[in-house]
């Protein structure tokens, strides 16, 4: 998948959580971990520093799980 498209999806998720109370970046990471297939997270993390990301997505990066499988 194109990393730019994943960035768009992540930013949309962040736009929802930015109005929510509580730990927003954690919520963003949670949503991505629960719904994105490992390959998607992999592609996304690999390209993350080159992507145009919402600040909340940036803050969530450390919590987005890299795939644990081979």
């Amino acid at each position: 998948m194109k990393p730019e498209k994943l960035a768009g999806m992540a930013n949309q998720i962040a736009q929802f959580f930015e109005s929510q109370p509580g730990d927003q970046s954690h919520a963003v990471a949670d949503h991505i971990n629960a719904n994105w297939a490992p390959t998607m997270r992999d592609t996304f993390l690999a390209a993350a520093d080159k992507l145009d990301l919402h600040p909340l997505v940036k803050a969530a990066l450390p919590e987005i799980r890299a795939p644990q499988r081979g």
Partner: protein
Amino acid sequence: MKDFIIPDGVHGPKLSDMGTPEKSGPPVTLVIDGMDVSVPEGTSVMRAAAEAGITVPKLCATDMLDAYGSCRLCVVEIEGMRGTPASCTTPVREGMVVKTQTDQLTRLRRGVMELYISDHPLDCLTCAANGDCELQDMAGAVGLRDVRYAPGENHVETRAAEGANPLYIPRDDSNPYFFYDPSKCIVCMRCVRACEEVQGTFALTVDGRGFDARISTGTEDFLNSDCVSCGACVQACPTATLQEKTVDEIGVPEHSVVTTCAYCGVGCSFEAQMRGDQLVRMVPWKEGKANRGHSCVKGRFAWGYANHGDRILNPMIRDSITDAWREVSWEEALEFAANGIKRAQAKHGKDSVGVITSSRCTNEETFLVQKLARAVMGTNNTDTCARVCHSPTGYGLKQTFGTSAGTQDFDSVEQVDCAVVIGANPTDGHPVFGSRLRKRLRQGAKLIVVDPRRIDLLETPHMGEGHHLPLRPGTNVAVLTAMAHVIVTEGLFDEAFIRERCDWDEWSDYAEFAADPAHSPEAVEELTGVPAEALRQAARTYAAAPNGAIYYGLGVTEHSQGSTTVIAIANLAMMTGNIGRPGVGVNPLRGQNNVQGSCDMGSFPHELPGYRHVSDDTARHGFEVEWGVTLDPEPGLRIPNMLDAAVAGDFKAIYIQGEDILQSDPDTHHVAAGLAAMECVIVHDLFLNETARYAHVFLPGSTFLEKDGTFTNAERRINPVRKVMAPKAGLADWEATQALANALGAGWSYTHPSEIMDEIARTTPAFAGVTYDLIDQMGSVQWPCNDAHPQGSPVMHEDGFVRGAGRFIRTAYVATEERTGPRFPLLLTTGRILSQYNVGAQTRRTENSVWHAEDRLEIHPHDAETRGIRDGDWVRLASRAGETSLRATITDRVSPGVVYTTFHHPDTQANVVTTDNSDWATNCPEYKVTAVQVGLSNGPSDWQELYTAQTKLTRRVEAAE
């Protein structure tokens, strides 16, 4: 083996007709022909007699309709009452003593029958209703032996003494499915009343009075009238005046099987009335709890596709999509398909393949397809076309209430005081529900419609208030949050309910959020286009109603903020206490017949059956034990992600059951590119659908008439689907999936779908109590059905939310990326119409096309005028994604700045123009908002012509040797 045969099915409902509708009330006891009978207060004497097993002769009464009292055949004698009252219009009283058969009554009834018969053609032996005619039956019942009237003025003969008979009206054959033969009409008014009371269309009237009275559509014929061909009048007609053409052609049926309509999420029950294994007609079943004896044109009449010549009945394969198809045996096709999957997995890893389940197939079939992915292929790459319609419902309701389902049954509508309809068009999309809602509106319930378009429901004659909030597409969240603002700031919320049932802190947070002046109707008026005062009135009306119910459709979910909108709806219901009893609730109107079921059955890549996340160890473990495999705890790919991965070269093979993603998914060009990049595309369907042009294997599917199984409708009702004929292609869909799994080494051995349901019950708590035996006994059952609810659950969240405390979640409006600008100044929104179904693969192959031969673009007169467009002109519809051409209809149903079309015909390719924007939480595509430009054109676009040419090329089939 599980077929449920109604013994006297020939006559179907007519034999068990109780004469007048059921009542509820304290019991009243009376004596009829010497027998004590107890019935609820308000019951007619006729119905009381029927309860006691005594059939009083009748013609104008039927239990689907209120009594009318015109034929006087049902007269009885009642002690202490003068004369001979009509039993259908006389309510029971305590201690009444009734006689239904005396010499006087016999004489009177014969006199009535004699009059009817004197103006009736006596061609019974060759009449289409021979053996199924109430007039015939009544002549027998009253012992009519001769008719003393000399031939005179009549409606029967084509000729009179001098020249043509002016009273004779020829048969009207304009409706493709039934005819109207006025010469047989006894003017009992059952049809007129059925059209009003049951259907709510008011298409029929009576012209003239007394002997001159004739039933009329008020127009030249049925086809050109308001009639929507629901069939209610045909069913109500006691004679052959209104009669199905199939009965005329084939003869009266001899047995019947109860089954479920395979079209929409209402899930109507039907009797499939058969002669041998030939289907004669589908008649709505009165015991059906979703439809209560009503139907729409699709389920009632549009089943001809099952025998259509376009159906593919042999498996086919080809090495390349430019080759012609080769017909082969099932074994060869399955081996070819299995090899394609194995090759892809060997070369590109186990996650390079996936499946798509269908919301048109049965629960059992869907369960097997996702099991095939998870347990046999070893990947969670499974998704369903429900993704493209109701996935936000799943997310939104799970977050707020704890489970992903509508809260009510359809009967609940009978107790609604204020119905809020958001982004749905029930009279077209969910017609039988639409009729039930209209009935309630005629009784005085209030109506609030939140939709860019003025839908038909608003034109319904009704007693109560009607509000229309014509919002700009894409601003649902802003409108609903503004309603919450009104309810919060004006103190209209139900504090007691919130305190008892919801989390108070979350409520306080939400109340503070909603109360922000930025969310007031005045502040968002310019954005949403909804006048602030109208919005305030609507919010007050909903909050004040004793029972307020929200019904919503794809206009809510198919947006970039679809999930947020569902949350906003749940918030509104909770803050007004409209949850947990009949007459209230949050009700998603599901598009296709088994959208609910396909979601329940674990079609989504991140959820096992029963909405349990794949990372949930307990849930996964249950399936691992049952299936003897290890399951992947990571979510798989969704449809759009599968296509993206295919374009990127990581996804190579797919098995698609009963789904046409090339036509139904947005951004056709992207879908085509994804499919073209795969090495093995397996399509399992009735027809060579649009997706099949990219397929390498075609497995022929079976219709709902050819298999056993269950569908789950929008009210969580598990309805039986029963086989009435053998699968025309040899295998029912569940058998084909099993054979494919076995070709991949699965070793499955199901012999009947009931065994699959048993497996579902063993593994999925909400279905723990469901068995085919229970469904046979109860007719249908609503999940959750388990030890706590052994008979199922009509209303959910009765004593508390499934998740515990109801959860309020903030709903901030985020504008869609799809914005209008100078190049694309209009907003396109899409929908469906009554006579066609989804991508139309079935309905287009029936006579329903007489009502909708093409997709049209609705445009406001103002927007049309500035572009020089006249009604019927070909116009070009262009967006950032692509362009197509279709013809324009000019109407003020849409607001200026908004255009609307349907997507039933492949030639229109409306999805060429929709973009790949999607819901933030679920990636449900944003069909409902696309910025477009419209201009005159001289015909189909280049893409459409290219597409048509390609269709020919990719559909070639080589003759089998």
